[in-house]
């Protein structure tokens, strides 16, 4: 049976090609890149080449790799906080980003604010107006769960002297970067890089301590270049596939709430909440049919908490499935998934005795 991973908003499967590059990078880049002998210099060179290539792809002056998103947030905020009166995130950012912002704010003796969002997941005008400024605002560009693209913050940042850090991991290649950012954070997992490389991109060159996982960082740029060359056609096919899927589900399932798939959203993300079903049962049945999908429901989560993103936008968190399409999926696979989901919902409702509701 074929398997299809449709949970690619945060991390994508590593291709054979990237895995081969990584094996090579592990042998060439095992040494401490600050060591003053040949092997150390070789590791350092791998790191620098990857950073320079990614900087060019993003349109940044410098790229620095961190081993995880928390370290990347800490690096960005500590570089930018000196003129700020507070650090802010939005209620729909990744939990690790919110947490790391709190820690980075505290380390600089600054308050941390979590800004309210509207029903679409965009930071509200009121929240921005009420925020003490100048601030360092860390926010995702495209939401990894519901596909919402953040409002344009350029004018606000310019008017208040605030600095914007964009977590563009889920958006990279799918949504154009807006101008005016102070840092862009990119997790290489989002484009099929190896876990352990999060890029902090700057518009100005800076001196920084080396903290990178060299082999993961070394293949991040090549994986990104590979993805970016496929991205323009992937955007078009994902938008078409998500629109058809949304239409199929809304037509075939009574009592559902769908987020994502509008022209203003990231093209590849859809969140579906289905009334009167157990999300874990949906996920398990789809998995056994060969489809891997995520869920934001409490019953399907390891920590027993529903998605903080759905809660923040007032969404229904029960029976939730998250779809993040990979590039290059044939239309009939996504259509087949839509048919399978409609069938699985009917099966689970019949089993739970909720078909009549």
């Amino acid at each position, binding site marked *: 049976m074929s398997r299809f991973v449709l949970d690619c908003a945060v991390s994508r499967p590593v291709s054979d090609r990237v895995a081969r590059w990584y094996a090579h990078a592990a042998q060439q880049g095992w040494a401490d890149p600050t060591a003053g002998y040949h092997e150390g210099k070789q590791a350092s060179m791998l790191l620098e080449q990857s950073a320079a290539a990614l900087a060019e792809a993003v349109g940044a002056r410098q790229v620095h790799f961190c081993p995880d998103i928390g370290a990347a947030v800490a690096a960005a905020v500590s570089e930018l906080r000196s003129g700020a009166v507070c650090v802010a995130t939005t209620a729909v950012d990744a939990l690790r980003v919110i947490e790391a912002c709190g820690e980075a704010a505290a380390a600089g003796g600054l308050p941390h604010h979590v800004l309210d969002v509207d029903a679409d997941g965009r930071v509200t005008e009121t929240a921005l107006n009420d925020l003490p400024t100048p601030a360092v605002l860390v926010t995702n560009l495209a939401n990894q769960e519901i596909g919402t693209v953040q409002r344009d913050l350029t004018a606000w940042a310019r008017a208040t002297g605030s600095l914007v850090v964009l977590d563009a991991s889920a958006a990279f290649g799918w949504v154009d970067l807006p101008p005016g950012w102070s840092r862009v954070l990119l997790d290489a997992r989002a484009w099929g890089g190896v876990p352990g490389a999060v890029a902090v991109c700057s518009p100005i060159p800076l001196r920084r301590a080396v903290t990178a996982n060299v082999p993961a960082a070394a293949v991040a740029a090549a994986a990104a270049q590979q993805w970016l060359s496929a991205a323009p056609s992937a955007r078009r096919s994902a938008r078409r596939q998500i629109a058809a899927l949304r239409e199929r589900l809304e037509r*075939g*399932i009574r009592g559902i*709430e769908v987020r994502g798939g509008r022209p203003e959203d990231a093209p590849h993300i859809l969140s579906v*909440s289905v009334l*009167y079903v157990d999300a874990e049962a949906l996920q398990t049945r789809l998995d056994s049919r060969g489809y891997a999908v995520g869920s934001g429901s409490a*019953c399907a989560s390891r920590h027993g908490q529903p998605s903080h993103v759905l809660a923040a936008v007032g969404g*229904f968190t*029960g*029976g939730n499935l998250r779809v993040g399409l990979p590039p290059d999926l044939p239309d009939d696979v996504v259509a087949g998934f839509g048919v399978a989901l409609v069938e699985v919902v009917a099966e689970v409702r019949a089993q739970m005795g909720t078909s009549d509701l």
Partner: protein
Amino acid sequence: MTICVDARGTRCPYPVIALARAAADVPAGTVIELLADDPVSLTDVPAWCRMRPAELRQTVDEDGYWRFVVVTAVTVVAEVTEP
């Protein structure tokens, strides 16, 4: 008319299922009091009322559980085409 539904001790998705079951065959304007101790209900009961639609008149924090006062309304269900 007021109906009381005690869904304490059950977890998502059962409190909302109990609420929907109670709301299924009653006239518009019926008051349903749902008792639930699953914290997910704080998110999902208001969302269910918005989707249905029904009116969430009150959420009362009782000792160790919540009491949701819901008023049913006329529901408009779209025609479903079978696959």
